C-alpha cells in the first residue's frame, strides 16, 4: 500500500555544508536581483554556492563567494508568478552541468525571503528529496490554495505540505531529474508554461518530503489577475495531474495529523464585502443550473439550491458539499462530460461561493486556518466517494 512519510521540518537542523548546491533564480528587476544576491550572501556566508540567473550580475557582486551561473531564457513565460515546466527543466540541466547535488528554486519576489529561510530551504534540500515552503499568509490570501489545491493534494496523496503549488522549492538531484522528465513531456506538448506538481510527483514516487517554515513572504501576483482564466488554468492543471496519477492515489491511504493552528487571537478586521460574490453565485445558479446538473448529482444540486436562498449574514457552504463539488468536477474533467474549458468556467462561481462562506465564517471569529483544516478533513473523509465514482462512473451516481 503506497504511503508517504512527510516530515514537518520547523526546527533548526544541524549545520550541513552547502557545497554542491545550486540556487536558481527567475528573472527579477535589477533592485530585487541585487537584494536577493545580498540575502544569498548572508544566507551562505563564505560558502561557495552556485546561483543561476538570467539577469546581469551587478559590478559589486564580483568579489562575492557566490558563483553566478548565467543562463538564457528560451521563452518569455506567460506565468512568471509561479514556477513552470521550463524553470524545472532548466534548473536540472544547470545542476547537472555544475555537478550540484541539490538545487533550490526561488520564485518571483525572492528578495522578500529572509536569509534564514533560504538557508533552511537549502539545508532541507540536501537532506530530503523535496522541500516545500510554508508561508505565513494573511487570512484573505492564497484562497485558491486553501479551497482547492491543499485539500485535494492532502486527501488524495496523503501529504501534509500546506502549499503544493510551489513558489520556492528545494530539490535533490534525483527529484529534480524526475521533475525534469515531466517538464520535458509538458514542453514537448507545447506547454512551456505548464504547471508541475512536485508534491504529487514526490508522493507517487515515494520520495521524502519536507516542509520548511519561511515566515512572511511577498507572494508574486499574476500580471493580469483574471480570476476566471487563472482558476481554470491552475485547477485544470491539478485535475489533469490527478487524472494521470489515479493508479497511485486510489491506493494511498491514511489521514494526516492535524496541522498546528496558531492560538494567537485573530486580528479584528472589518466584515468582508461578500455581496458581489453572492450576486455572482446567485446569477450563476440561475443561468448555469443546467450545466451544473450535467456534472453534479442531485444531492449537491439540492445543497446549492439551499445556498442560493441563504441570507448573506448566515451564508455557509458545508465543508462536505464543497468537497463533493470539487470531486465531481475532477471526475467530469476526466470523463469529459462537457468541454473542459466550459467545465472549469462553471467552477468559478462555486469557488466564489466557498470564498464568501469562508469569509463569513472567519468574520464571526472562527480562525481561518481552523476552517481550512476542517475543509481538508472533509476532503479526506469523502475520498471514498471519489474513488467509487471514479471506478464506476455509471453505476455509482448518488
Amino acid at each position, binding site marked *: 500500500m503506497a504511503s508517504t512519510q512527510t516530515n514537518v521540518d520547523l526546527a533548526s537542523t544541524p549545520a550541513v555544508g552547502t557545497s554542491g548546491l545550486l540556487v536558481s533564480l527567475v528573472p527579477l528587476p535589477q533592485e530585487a536581483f541585487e537584494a536577493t544576491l545580498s540575502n544569498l550572501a548572508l544566507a551562505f556566508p563564505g560558502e561557495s554556492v552556485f546561483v543561476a540567473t538570467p539577469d546581469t550580475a551587478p559590478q559589486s557582486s564580483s568579489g562575492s563567494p557566490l558563483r553566478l551561473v548565467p543562463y538564457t531564457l528560451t521563452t518569455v513565460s506567460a506565468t512568471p508568478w509561479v514556477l513552470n515546466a521550463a524553470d524545472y527543466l532548466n534548473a536540472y540541466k544547470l545542476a547537472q552541468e555544475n555537478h550540484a547535488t541539490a538545487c533550490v528554486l526561488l520564485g518571483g519576489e525572492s528578495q522578500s525571503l529572509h536569509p534564514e529561510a533560504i538557508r533552511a530551504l537549502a539545508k532541507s534540500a540536501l537532506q530530503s528529496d523535496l522541500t516545500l515552503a510554508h508561508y505565513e*499568509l494573511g487570512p484573505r490570501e492564497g484562497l485558491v*490554495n486553501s479551497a482547492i489545491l491543499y485539500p485535494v493534494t492532502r486527501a488524495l496523496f496523503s501529504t501534509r505540505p500546506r502549499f503544493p503549488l510551489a513558489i520556492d522549492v528545494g530539490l535533490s538531484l534525483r527529484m529534480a531529474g524526475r521533475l525534469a522528465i515531466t517538464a520535458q513531456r509538458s514542453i514537448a506538448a507545447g506547454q512551456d508554461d505548464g504547471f508541475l506538481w512536485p508534491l504529487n510527483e514526490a508522493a507517487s514516487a515515494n520520495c521524502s518530503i519536507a516542509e520548511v517554515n519561511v515566515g512572511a513572504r511577498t507572494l508574486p501576483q499574476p500580471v493580469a489577475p483574471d480570476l476566471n482564466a*487563472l482558476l481554470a488554468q491552475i485547477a485544470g492543471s491539478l485535475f489533469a495531474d490527478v487524472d494521470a496519477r489515479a493508479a497511485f492515489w486510489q491506493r494511498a491511504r491514511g489521514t494526516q495529523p492535524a496541522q498546528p493552528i496558531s492560538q494567537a487571537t485573530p486580528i479584528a478586521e472589518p466584515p468582508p*464585502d461578500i455581496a458581489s460574490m453572492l450576486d*455572482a453565485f446567485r*446569477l450563476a445558479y440561475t*443561468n448555469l443550473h443546467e450545466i451544473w446538473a450535467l456534472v453534479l448529482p442531485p444531492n449537491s444540486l439540492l445543497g446549492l439550491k439551499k445556498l442560493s436562498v441563504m441570507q448573506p449574514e448566515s451564508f455557509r457552504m458545508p465543508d462536505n458539499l464543497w468537497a463533493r463539488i470539487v470531486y465531481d468536477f475532477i471526475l467530469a474533467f476526466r470523463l469529459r462530460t462537457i468541454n*473542459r474549458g*466550459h467545465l472549469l468556467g462553471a467552477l468559478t*462561481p462555486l469557488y466564489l461561493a466557498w470564498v464568501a462562506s469562508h469569509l463569513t465564517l472567519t468574520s464571526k471569529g472562527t480562525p481561518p486556518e481552523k476552517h481550512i483544516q476542517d475543509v481538508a478533513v472533509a476532503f479526506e473523509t469523502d475520498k471514498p466517494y471519489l474513488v467509487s465514482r471514479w471506478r464506476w462512473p455509471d453505476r455509482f451516481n448518488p
Partner: protein
Amino acid sequence: MWQQIELALRQSAQSVLVKLARFLPGLLALLLAVIVLTAIGAGVATLLRRILTAAKFDERLARNATGPLSDWSPANSPTALIARVAFWACVLIGCFIGISAFDAAYPGDSQISNFIIPYLTHSIGAVLLLIAGTVIARFLERSVLIGAVNAKLQYARFLSLGIKWLVLVLTAAMVLDHLQIGGTVVELAFGILFGGIVLTLALAVGLGSRDIVSRSLERSADHRSPLDPIHADPDFKSPTPQETLRHF
C-alpha cells in the same frame, strides 16, 4: 366506342405494368447494394471497435492530450466516433453503388445517376454542414453563457440564446443554399432574419438594458478606483476601501 375505351385502358395498363417490370430489377439492385454495404459497414465498425479497444486507443489518445477529438466524440470515445464514421461511410458507398446499379439496370437513355449522384453528394454536404453548424451553435451558446455569467452580466442567457440562433439561422441558410432550394427567396429571408436578430440584440443591450449596463460599469469603476474623500464635510464618512482578496 366502349370497345375503343376498353382497348385504350388495357393498353395503358399494360404499358404501366411493362414499365413497372422494367423498374423493379433496378430498384431491387439499389436495395440489395444498400443492404449489403450496410451489413459490411456494420461488420467493419465492429471490427474497428474491437481492434481499437484492444489497442487502448482512447487511453493513448487521452495521454497525448488530443483534446479536440475527444471533445467532439460521442460519449467522449474516439473509438466510437471512428467506428460510426466507418459504418456511415459504407452506407453512403452502398447508396452510390445502388444508384449506379439502378441506372444500369433501368433500360433507356434517362441516365438517372447523372443527376441523382451529384445531388446526393450535395445532400451529404448539407447534412455535414447541418451537424457542424448545430455543434458549433451549442458550443458557442455555452461559451457565451459561462463567459457572460462570470462577467456578471445579467442578460447572459439572452445573449447566449441570441448567439445560438444566429449561428443556427446562418447554418440553415447555408444548407438550403447548398441544396439549391429556394434561391433568392432564402437569401432574402436569411438577410432579413439575421439582420433582425442582430438589431434586436443591439437594441436590447443598448437601449433596453442601459440601466443594467450602466450599473455594471459603475460597479467595475468602483472596484478600480476608490473615491476621494471630501474632507470639508465633517459628516462625510470616507468609504473604506474593499478588503483586498488574494486568490493566489
